[in-house]
């Protein structure tokens, strides 16, 4: 493997650089903090002729997703990025993009959802999209953003998948960091990611009807097909990640572990907080607390089997949720993980800390505190960590 130069760059710009390497045909991006730097830098790349992309300066996120679906239907590779209110505005179209099997890629600079308005970071925007039929992958640092973005179209356009992909990039905490990253050469990427070869396209040479309506005779089959495609996508996703590892040396798994050997208590995180959590685990281990960390990289399809294996000997799981699922008595990651263990003979005690909402900093010390508390847990808990009242 060639040794590559690492360059320091803001992560949002790096995301745009990666998109610029993917030979995207149509991009339609509407600015919203903290995604805006992606929109801006991609426009610069287009303006400088560094990527041959039709950049559609849409008037809303609803239109950016509509443009992506229309473009994708013609056989074009389509890209967008958004977060928060923008993601909520395009919500209507997400299940349509997946059901119509449009392999669109979208970067989401995870940010809370109003009200109150808050431009910082958490996962409240992505959670309402859980059931939209998209593949959702979370990143932890700048290098992962670059790698996962470069792999996204390979996954989305795979004939066994044909589904759109979201890359979650925590707002500010990740989008606005300057980090050292390395980029593959364009030639290597061109080889890794050949031009999109669609199944079916809108073209007068072979007129097709797309987006027909269906009655009960066909509707359930279509829903089943989409669910099966999403469930089955996991093995292909892993295959693509394996190829990446062989070529570029960095390894990605649906569920990743850190010092879980023999750990009695396992913290479960998703997104940028995972790196801080690792430091927390180190500190806890130094103190003699038997703690490890499991990081969920693949949020949809949910990696149930991998998770079971990763935590099989743990007594306690402490699930860190960066979003609330009001009225369910637990955060969204927590409730999903609980469902995984329902059918198991032996189940860990699962506790849930909702934290880091609206950009609250979650420090190494916080993970140490939560880890210590979880290690003593006797039963299920649900707590807004560090929130008074």
């Amino acid at each position, binding site marked *: 493997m060639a040794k590559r130069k690492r360059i320091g760059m803001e992560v949002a710009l790096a995301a745009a650089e990666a998109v610029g390497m993917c030979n995207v045909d149509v991009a339609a991006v509407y600015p919203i903090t903290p995604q805006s730097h992606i929109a801006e830098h991609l426009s610069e790349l287009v303006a400088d002729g560094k990527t041959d992309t039709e950049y559609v300066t849409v008037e809303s996120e609803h239109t950016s997703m509509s443009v992506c679906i229309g473009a994708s239907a013609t*056989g074009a590779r389509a890209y967008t990025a958004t977060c928060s209110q923008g993601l909520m505005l395009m919500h209507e179209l997400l299940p349509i993009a997946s059901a119509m099997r449009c392999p669109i890629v979208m970067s989401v600079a995870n940010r809370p959802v109003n009200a109150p308005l808050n431009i910082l970071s958490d996962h409240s925007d992505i959670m309402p999209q859980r059931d939209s039929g998209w593949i959702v992958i979370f990143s932890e640092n700048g290098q992962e953003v670059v790698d996962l973005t470069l792999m996204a179209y390979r996954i989305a356009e795979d004939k066994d998948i044909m589904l759109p992909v979201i890359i979650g990039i925590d707002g500010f905490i990740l989008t606005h960091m300057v980090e050292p990253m390395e980029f593959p050469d364009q030639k290597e990427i061109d080889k890794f990611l050949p031009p999109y070869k669609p199944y079916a396209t809108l073209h007068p040479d*072979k007129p097709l009807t*797309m987006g*027909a309506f269906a009655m009960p005779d066909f509707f359930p089959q279509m829903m089943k097909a989409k669910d099966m495609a999403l469930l089955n996508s996991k093995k292909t996703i892993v295959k693509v990640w394996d190829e990446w590892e062989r070529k570029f040396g960095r390894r990605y798994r649906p569920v990743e572990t850190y010092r879980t050997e023999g750990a009695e208590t396992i913290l479960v995180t998703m997104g940028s907080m995972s790196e801080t959590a690792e430091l927390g685990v180190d500190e806890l281990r130094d103190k003699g607390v038997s703690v490890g960390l499991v990081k969920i990289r693949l949020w949809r399809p949910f990696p149930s089997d991998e998770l079971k294996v990763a935590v099989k000997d743990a007594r306690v799981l402490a699930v860190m949720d960066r979003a609330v699922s009001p009225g369910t008595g637990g955060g969204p990651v927590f409730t999903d993980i609980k469902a995984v263990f329902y059918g198991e003979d032996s189940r860990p005690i699962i506790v849930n800390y909702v934290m880091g909402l609206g950009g609250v900093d979650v420090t190494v010390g916080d993970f140490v505190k939560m880890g210590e508390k979880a290690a003593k847990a006797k039963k299920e808990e649900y707590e807004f960590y560090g929130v008074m009242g």
Partner: protein
Amino acid sequence: MSIVENFDLYAPRLIDKGEYFSMGHTGCAGCGEALATRLVLKGLGKDTIVSNATGCLEIISSRYPTTAWEIPWIHVAFENAAAVAAGVESGLKALRRKGRIPDRDVKSVSMAGDGGTADIGLQALSGAMERGHDMIHVCYDNEAYMNTGIQRSSQTPFGAWSTTSPPGEVSFGQRTWKKNIPEIMVAHNVAYVATANPSYPLDLIRKVEKARKLKGPSYIHCLSVCPTGWRMDSSLTIKVGRLALETGIFPLYEVENGKYRITVDMPEPLRPVEDYLKLQGRFRHLRPDKIEEIQARVNLEIKKLMNKVNYIQSWEELG
């Protein structure tokens, strides 16, 4: 009429014999929207991709696994037909440039009802027109949300009954006048805006052909008589469409590079609006004072239009 004599005799022979909107769709008998679509597609020809909003047209033509569309067609949602068409146009443009599809002039056309155009779809339409995509938007104006059960829209005429503007003890029906969408499109500085009406098929097809030839965005607002929603006999579709013109309620005109032109002459004097209203159950409850109010408004609107026709110069003339 400023066209050659006997035009109507030989012109039909010039019309595309192809049928791109096939029989067997499930539209109501006498559906003006289905007829208009058939004619519009003749004007567009086979190198066309249609992005269709949710609404009657979509529902009557696309029950899976059947289709009435002989050209490529896509439906995504209700309010975004123009945005999808913008995406189709952008996709084609990029793929042509990169040599991945044949370098052929394929037109992206969005189609929506009055709701999908003037109400929920107005933002997407405005954005698409403002950005200058090479596309046409066709609005089939049947003056209500027909697909969902005849609810009022911003295009429902003053005084009309609809299921959400019912006349009652303290209501005479729809309380607002039609929002002027062609004028809003003119304000977008698009090169071509026209009204159309399938009761005048040659005029309609000619306008579509004109828009088809242009590079850039254009807009066609097509009156689409709806016997079901207008509460009228389904054999009267063409007649009621003609009365819409003869009473001055729906004049046929085009705006080319800023210049207004009447394309089908109206009788002088205009027929009274009552001739049009009385054939439709949706106006049955109107009392004479309301009919007078409508007549006065139609007279004013025609004056406003003629004022533009007579005095506004084209961009070339001004330039």
